[in-house]
């Protein structure tokens, strides 16, 4: 099975304090530590496990700049056979639809049975997978937390739905799935693995390579634009009840009554 995993390099929120820049129109990006988006890493692990069972190859792709190559190499160190960097000045400022259109152009020039994305990037909108699927007219499922390859060009997938319940579906290949964190346990990537792929060539593809109309992507074509960035005002903090269980129950009832939650 040929699997494409779309990955993204994002600020690592476990390593950074996210702060506004002085202009107030973005986060302060100087000195940020970046890493692969967590859900994308789970998607790569899932792809590797699938090809481990049924054969095939995993390709990782990202739309970005030179710096984004590092996450491709990290995922190649995990076991992805190929990394593809899609980069062009014309792509800068693309909204979700623009990114999906760029990825669609890449997919149409290749052959993939399965396309995985992380369910959401921390600084994004859980949109590219579903848009890409619609553009390709492939079936799509989000929040996938289990995948089993079954006979007849299908997958049996589990999805997390409301109330902590799980929904099982069969889905035809080729398809696009967005992967939920926790679907597996991503393997450790050591320095040795990173060094082994350090010199593996990563092709860089631009608008002309993909046949993308530069006017249809990028900032000028974006129909969703960020106009402001702010830190929300802090609300009142939570009150931690610190008594015995009985005392806490009594206090909770008092609070609920005071707020109108209990008559």
């Amino acid at each position, binding site marked *: 099975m040929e699997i494409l995993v779309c990955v993204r390099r994002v600020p690592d929120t476990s390593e950074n304090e996210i702060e506004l820049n002085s202009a107030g129109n973005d986060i302060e990006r100087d000195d940020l530590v970046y890493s692969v988006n967590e859900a994308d890493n789970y998607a790569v692990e899932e792809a590797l496990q699938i090809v481990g069972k049924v054969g095939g190859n995993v390709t990782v792709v990202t739309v970005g700049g030179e710096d984004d190559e590092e996450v491709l190499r990290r995922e190649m160190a995990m076991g992805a056979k190929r990394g593809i960097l899609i980069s062009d000045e014309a792509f800068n400022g693309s909204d979700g639809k623009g990114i999906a259109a760029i990825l669609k152009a890449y997919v149409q020039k290749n052959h993939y049975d399965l396309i995985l994305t992380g369910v959401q990037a921390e600084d994004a909108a859980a*949109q590219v997978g579903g848009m890409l699927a*619609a553009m390709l007219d492939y079936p799509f499922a989000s929040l996938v937390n289990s995948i089993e390859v079954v006979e007849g060009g299908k997958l049996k997938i589990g999805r997390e739905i409301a109330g902590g319940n799980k929904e099982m579906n069969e889905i035809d290949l080729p398809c696009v799935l967005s992967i939920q964190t926790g679907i597996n346990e991503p393997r450790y990537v050591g320095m040795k693995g990173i060094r082994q792929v350090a010199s593996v060539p990563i092709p860089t593809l631009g608008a002309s390579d993909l046949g993308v109309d530069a006017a249809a992507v990028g900032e000028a074509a974006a129909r969703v634009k960020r106009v402001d960035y702010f830190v929300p005002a802090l609300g009142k903090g939570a009150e931690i009840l610190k008594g015995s269980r009985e005392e806490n129950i009594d206090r909770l009832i008092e609070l609920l009554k005071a707020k109108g939650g209990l008559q």
Partner: protein
Amino acid sequence: MARIFAYIEHKGGVPDDSAMELVSAAKTINAAAAPTAVLTGWGADLDAVSTTLCASYGEVWKIASDALAYPNAELVRKALVKVIPEGSIVLIPHAHFGVDLGPGLSIKLNSPFVSDVLGIEGVEGGWLKVVRQEFGGR
């Protein structure tokens, strides 16, 4: 002003709580709007939800089919694309079904898409201004 639709999730003949939040969201976009509820499903449950919604929505459109008895975003999207006019604003609850439905629907309706909206500031110069969070609100 674009017509506003709200996709209503429901279960057991009862609309999801988000149905009322979507009415409020529609009024924030356009105070004069009489938003249209659109819901899919089958049977008596669908009829019961439609009746309930009539008290809160200007119009209620129900798309009834036994194929839609259990919500499947692929099928629902195809149904919605057939009835919702291009250029409309469609409000969808940001739950698992909305995550499945919204992005693809926006492509098929040729509409911009914003997910996980926490606030709506209104329309300015033909742009709808909304608030969403990044980095988990950090």
